[in-house]
């Protein structure tokens, strides 16, 4: 029995997120084999072998937006390749599909794992964030078959093998009953849940006309932009940038919060970030209690200076 890892390429290549999953799969598999199924075409699929895949399979033309079809492909692949555990990325398609795969396989499911599970006596213990980042829970999956979804940035990809050949996998792909009529990409940057660097703005910016100050900082760092809820509610920024308990929960390496007070609902979605920097003119702002570094000052003066200093650092590097 093996572990099956599902990887979706981005625009024809597998990126760091995909290699991360291969490493995650291998570490979960222990003595067992780690098989990776690439759903779609990727020119570098064989490189998954470097990061932990013992065998790499490929299947193309799967309507991944339709969880009914996608889950059938994954469940059939898992049966065909005799796998006891299926690992899927905790992104929009992965979350929509994992629950269906679990029902098809009679498996227990733990979503959005943030570290490699521990295997004890046939059980798998999986840790994940709960209460929107305010706590963690560790679960044992008690069924023979197991399904886990994994958050981006949970581990770093590790080199542990060499590139391997890619085999095509034959499973039946029924036609989808859901048609894709439009797709809209909102920014060229890394999507928020996967971003390693995030700069975020709050009501302290006073209005959308001042956002270029934050966008310049984002450009200098090559960071993704986010915002607090009132900013999205006022349509200063698009809704998909809203982070927090009722927005997106993120855990980048660096979160720079500018003009955000640090309300408990905001912190809930960001406090698992590795390093938090807060820029606020109010020394009493609650966010400073959750921060690693802070500057008490006027954002309209501090942020442009910060952008310049970062440009200097990058130019020197």
């Amino acid at each position, binding site marked *: 029995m093996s572990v099956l890892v599902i990887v979706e390429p981005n625009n024809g290549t597998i990126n760091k997120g995909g290699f991360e999953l291969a490493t995650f799969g291998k570490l979960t598999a222990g003595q067992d084999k780690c098989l990776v199924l690439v759903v779609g075409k990727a020119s570098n699929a064989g490189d998954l072998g470097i990061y932990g895949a013992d065998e790499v399979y490929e299947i193309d033309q799967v309507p991944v937006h339709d969880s009914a079809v996608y889950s059938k492909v994954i469940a059939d692949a898992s049966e065909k390749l005799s796998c006891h555990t299926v690992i899927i990325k905790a992104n929009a398609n992965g979350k929509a599909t994992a629950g269906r795969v679990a029902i098809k396989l009679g498996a227990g499911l733990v979503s959005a794992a943030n570290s490699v599970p521990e295997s004890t006596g046939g059980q798998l213990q999986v840790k994940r964030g709960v209460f929107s980042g305010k706590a963690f829970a560790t679960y044992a999956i008690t069924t023979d078959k197991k399904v886990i979804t994994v958050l981006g940035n949970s581990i770093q990809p590790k080199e542990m093998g060499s590139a391997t050949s890619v085999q095509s996998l034959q499973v039946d792909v029924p036609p989808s009953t859901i048609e*894709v009529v439009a797709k809209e990409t909102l920014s060229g940057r890394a999507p928020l849940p996967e971003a390693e660097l995030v700069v975020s703005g709050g009501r302290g910016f006073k209005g959308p006309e001042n956002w270029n100050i934050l966008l310049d900082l984002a450009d200098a760092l090559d960071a993704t932009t986010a915002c607090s809820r009132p900013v999205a509610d006022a349509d200063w920024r698009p809704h998909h940038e809203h982070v927090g308990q009722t927005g997106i929960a993120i855990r980048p390496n660096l979160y720079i919060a500018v003009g955000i007070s640090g309300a408990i609902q905001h912190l809930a979605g960001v406090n698992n970030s590795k390093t938090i920097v807060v820029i606020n003119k109010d020394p009493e702002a609650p966010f400073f209690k959750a921060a690693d570094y802070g500057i008490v000052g006027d954002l309209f003066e501090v942020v442009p200076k910060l952008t310049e200093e970062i440009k200097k650092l990058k130019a020197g590097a």
Partner: protein
Amino acid sequence: MKTLVCISKTPDTTSKISFSSDGKNFNTDGISFIMNPYDEWYALVRAVELKEKLGGTVTVINVGDASNDIVIRKALAIGADDAIRVDANPIDSFFVASQIAAVAKDKSYDIIFLGKETIDYNGAEVGAMLAEMLDLPYVSFANKLEVDGDAKTIRREIEGGTETLKLSGPCVISAAKDMAQQRIPNMQGILMSKRKPLEVVTPVGASSRIEVIKHDLPPAKKGVTLVDAGNVAELVRLLHEEAKVI
């Protein structure tokens, strides 16, 4: 339009989270509970809007004990017509999905709505499981829904953007921000909610598939290092050399 809206009860967003000394159970002392915001603000309100526009009924369903009746009454006050409570402790998402599927199986709902996720366990699991049990299409994280006869056009959140999908016939939809605007129940709604039917049903057999080992709280932060506003270069140095994040 006949819709079913799955609602759950979650701790208020300002709650301080703590656990029993063995780490197994969430400590509910002093916690006030609310209807899960995604269920209330987006799923329920969109279902009520569709009823107002197209006619039909909105039923809400909850898996839980009688202490949940307060959030169920709120859903009725916002505009649902009737409610079903499956009288059981919602042990895990498989158990909850099994209960809702058993109720929904023969009722031919046009749309079954859920919120994107609950703000306590954040699993986003029940919708997919339920859709599979009922053999229905599932669209998650929907932030716009238009219904035209049998056809549904649904925009959903995906990484870094949105995707618009079209399907016909019954389906399961999980609702995200933008799907609708929060509604505050008015006096008439609150009065009417007391007389609307709330049916309590016994659970079907389903065993849990996962077990809680423990809960932990995040490690305390070591405290903030403040840098003078006139010395921004020092912050960049610390991020580069000490935190090593840039």
